[in-house]
């Protein structure tokens, strides 16, 4: 099994193979992700029972939690890609780093907006500097920083390597920020009407949540593949296989 993983890893490291991989995967990835998302959301919005203390506004959870977790996972993936890009100088890792940022930033923004809109009916205020929201805000800034840095540097390889270093440093920071803001909030007990407790969430609510999460994460993956594929074409535009590909498509 290790052999197949190793072979897979080496193959995907080749831009040309990666392109073929995208062509094969995307046609089903997009519909499947959208379907899962639709099923999860409709189940959660229409069929799931109401939450006792919060009322129907809790249904925002079905997009809020998938977006929050997606944004966090995306940044960690960027950190891993950054590490691979710096240590092994893998071209594809640089491409992935660039591809992961925009949708991750969008998910972080979605998390903040949905969190605020959920907070107002629940706690009476749109914004609270609690651990989760503050960490997510910092995460959004980190995403935007990576995108700004890549934009500011003209040479794509230098831009990617700079972003890689920033991503690795950023991941370390994300961990420390979480602790720092949690500590900050233990000082302020405030109205901490906790979200439907993670471990004790009812089965009828757990399933739509998990399905929506799967759908949104797969949609993120599709977005990444689309962006990565474009980046590969752009970087390899001078190479034979790209020229042949484009010429065949024109015919």
């Amino acid at each position, binding site marked *: 099994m290790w052999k197949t993983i190793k072979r897979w890893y080496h193959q995907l490291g080749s831009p040309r193979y990666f392109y073929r991989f995208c062509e094969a995967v995307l046609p089903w990835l997009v519909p499947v992700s959208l379907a899962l998302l639709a099923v999860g*959301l409709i189940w959660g*919005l*229409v*069929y*799931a*029972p*109401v939450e006792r203390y919060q*009322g*129907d*506004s809790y*249904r*925002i959870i079905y*997009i*809020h939690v998938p*977006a929050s977790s997606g944004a966090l996972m995306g940044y960690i993936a960027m950190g891993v890609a950054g590490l691979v890009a710096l240590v092994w100088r893998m071209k594809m890792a640089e491409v992935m780093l660039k591809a992961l940022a*925009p*949708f991750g930033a*969008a*998910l972080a*923004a*979605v998390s903040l*907006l*949905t969190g605020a*809109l*959920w907070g*107002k*009916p629940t706690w009476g205020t749109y914004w609270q500097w609690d651990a989760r929201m503050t960490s997510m805000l910092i995460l959004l800034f980190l995403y935007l920083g990576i995108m700004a840095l890549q934009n500011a540097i003209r040479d794509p390889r230098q831009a990617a390597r700079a972003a890689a270093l920033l991503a690795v440093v950023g991941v370390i920071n994300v961990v420390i920020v979480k602790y720092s803001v949690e500590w900050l909030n233990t000082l302020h007990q405030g109205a901490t009407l906790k979200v439907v407790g993670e471990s004790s969430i009812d089965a*009828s609510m757990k399933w739509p949540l998990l399905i929506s999460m799967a759908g949104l994460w797969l*949609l993120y993956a*599709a*977005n990444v593949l*689309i*962006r990565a*594929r*474009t980046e590969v*074409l*752009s970087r390899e*535009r001078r190479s034979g296989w*790209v*020229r042949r590909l*484009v*010429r065949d*498509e*024109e015919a």
Partner: protein
Amino acid sequence: MFDPYFDSVAAFIAMGEHGFFVWSAYGLSALLIVTNMLVAVRRQGRVRAEIARQARRDGARTSPKAGTSSNSVESNQ
């Protein structure tokens, strides 16, 4: 588990008087996500067209007899 929680469509939209918050949340999320996907796809189209244009120009330059009539009329800049 398979009958809707809400009694009527109106009740569904109202979301127990939290309708504004729920639908704004989902609306904004859809906006952000859909826009992001569209931008990604649009950019892909643009890059492809750019590469195709460049390939056509190179093709016309290297082989004088190649290229369709539309290519030869196209100005080179």
